């Protein structure tokens, strides 16, 4: 690429960019997921993490079991009303910037458990960035969810800022 102006002095050894983009680029390729796996979908996530599908190809293999160290919350499984306050607390313990993937029919909408015990979608209590369909989603779909998050991340600053500023009010926030 032909560079002109001051950048030309350094030749190919330096790339100039905006700080935001540089940070986004770094984050994008090293997401630390926290798996909130409750049910059958979590078993499929185990496949995503194992050698055949290998989530580390996307830089997200450092699965954290403390929400404080994670920036990607993957909800895989049915969330019951009994479970809801726990999920909310875990979400709150994560520090910004944080991202949420709701994987599987149950997490997205309650799935085929339209009954007295199942929360009809986790977005009733916490905000969600990407929804992955399937019951359970195939491992490829999980990875696609991750790629979608990476794309969102690449949008410098704006998306996240908007989301953080938008006040979310879930059913448990009352």
């Amino acid at each position, binding site marked *: 690429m032909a560079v002109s102006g001051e950048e030309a002095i350094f030749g190919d050894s330096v790339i100039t960019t905006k700080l935001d983009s540089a940070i986004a680029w770094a984050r994008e390729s090293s997401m630390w997921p926290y798996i909130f796996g409750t049910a059958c979908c979590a078993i*499929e996530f185990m496949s995503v993490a194992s050698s055949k599908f290998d989530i580390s190809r996307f830089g997200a293999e450092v699965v954290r079991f403390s929400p404080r160290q994670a920036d990607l919350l993957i909800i895989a499984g049915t969330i019951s009303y*009994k479970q809801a306050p*726990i999920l909310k607390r875990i979400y709150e313990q994560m520090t910004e910037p944080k991202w949420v993937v709701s994987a599987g029919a149950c997490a997205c909408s309650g799935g085929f458990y339209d*009954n007295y015990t199942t929360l009809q979608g986790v977005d009733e209590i916490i905000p969600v960035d990407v929804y992955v369909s399937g019951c*359970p989603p195939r491992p490829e779909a999980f990875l696609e969810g991750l790629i979608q998050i990476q794309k969102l991340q690449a949008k410098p600053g704006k998306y996240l800022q908007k989301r953080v500023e938008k006040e979310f009010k879930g*059913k448990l926030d009352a």
Partner: protein
Amino acid sequence: MLKKCDDKLEFSKEENNRYILKLKDIKKAIIFLKEQQGYDFLVDITAIDYLNYKEPYPKRFAIIYLLKDKKFDNLIILKAYLDEDEIIDSITDLFKAANWSEREVWDQYGLKFKNHPNLKRILNHKEFIGHPLRKDYPITKGQLCTKTDDLMDEMTPRLKARGYENHEELMFLNLGPAHPASHGTIRTFVALEGETIVSAVSEIGYLHRGFEKSCENHTYNQIIPYTDRLNYCSAILNNIAFAHTVEGMLGVELPERGQFIRVIIGELSRVIDHLVCLAANLVDMGALTNYWYLYNPRETAYHLLSKLTGARLTNSYMRIGGITHDLYDGFEDDLKECIKDVQKGMDDSLSLIEHNRIFQDRAQNIGVVSADEAINRGWSGPNLRASGVNYDIRKVNPYYFYDTFEFDVALGSVGDVYDRMMVRFEEIRQSIKIITQAMKRLPKGDIRVADHRITLPPKKMVYSTIEGAINQFKLTYEGVKVPTGEYYRSIEAANGELGFYIASDGSGTPYRVKVRPPCFFAMSSLPDMVEGEMVADAVLDLGSLNIIAGELDR
């Protein structure tokens, strides 16, 4: 049999060895059966609400006890009718297994038990109002939960019993429900002295998904996908257990080929289930390499299953009276490949751990449960066999030609974590043996019952004959009509005795379905098992019981 009881019980006998007693006599009958007739295995306790039943019953509710004898081949069902305000005598002093079952009946139906140590909700949350399995509770009426239970109401008496009056010296810790080693969403709350657990309480229900209520609102075939999600590590075995029970009520048997396919795919599911359990167990121990060795062959099996059924995990491969479709061309080669992979993974893993001192020290004599204790707690499957009890439904009450296959029952001698794991390794081997024999003997022929009131007619018939069209329409809209009655049947699933107690009112939708989940009984013993052990051992105990939350909480 109850005639022999000295107490002169009043009873009447119905079909399927079911006795109707007076509520006040139930406990007497159970004591008699346990102490004099050797019925020392409590299969399950459940209840039914007859509010909307087509014919009136003497009283609104019924409480039902299922017991098996020492040889595990005789099942007896005791039943009593009662109204909401009547109180049942608790049998927790006779069977430890009854503790959680009675709590479940209270939680779901609001029936009270006298002398129960702590009759509180178990599946639903603390703030829940009402009892969801009552027929007048609307299925979609959810109730928000805002706080988690602190469990001190259970912890304090337990600590007191161990002589801890004040708790200043102790540290309290939650293992779960969101914890990497909790294998799903199970919570164990422990009180620690140093690293030793002095007292523990388990809380379940985080994955309660209303399976039983959903069953009452779907036709029999629509329930099959729900059964997938009970023990999702071996979905097909659940499909089989449910279909097998309903087929028993209909009085039909699958053609031979159908039965053989059920054996082959069922055993393959058992293999996968054990692989996942062992892999997770070894990871908990820090032996990560084994995870890859044991997990990757499972991937081959999933590939095969998705080719066969269209889904990797939630297969829904069975139907009432049959199987969705036959094996595909080339199935046998794929299966061979898959078995080869499993064997290799198992050998690799065993070569790492079998004679490994660290593994042995870590697993031996941890979480020991004696044979009597295990029976009293209602354990079954590999966990029970690890304690040295020879109970395998495939041998005791053979179904699907299991009596014609040559295979051994793996038994442990100590009943510790080590035995429970090794029994599973051996069971994988035996399952492979069964699969190989069944493949060799696989007969040709139909895979479905020919009666088109039960299984869908072929498409050609639907489009060209009026009878076929009617069959198709009725089956799809109304479901399989199951004769009126109540029935229990079980199979040997990956985790043990997986049974269904189904009450039918003659329509295409069950009036009541109760699952007998093997995990539920294993899990109820965890608090007692871990007391006196280290925290790190508690993790192994939980893993070695193979608790699957979907089946546990339903």
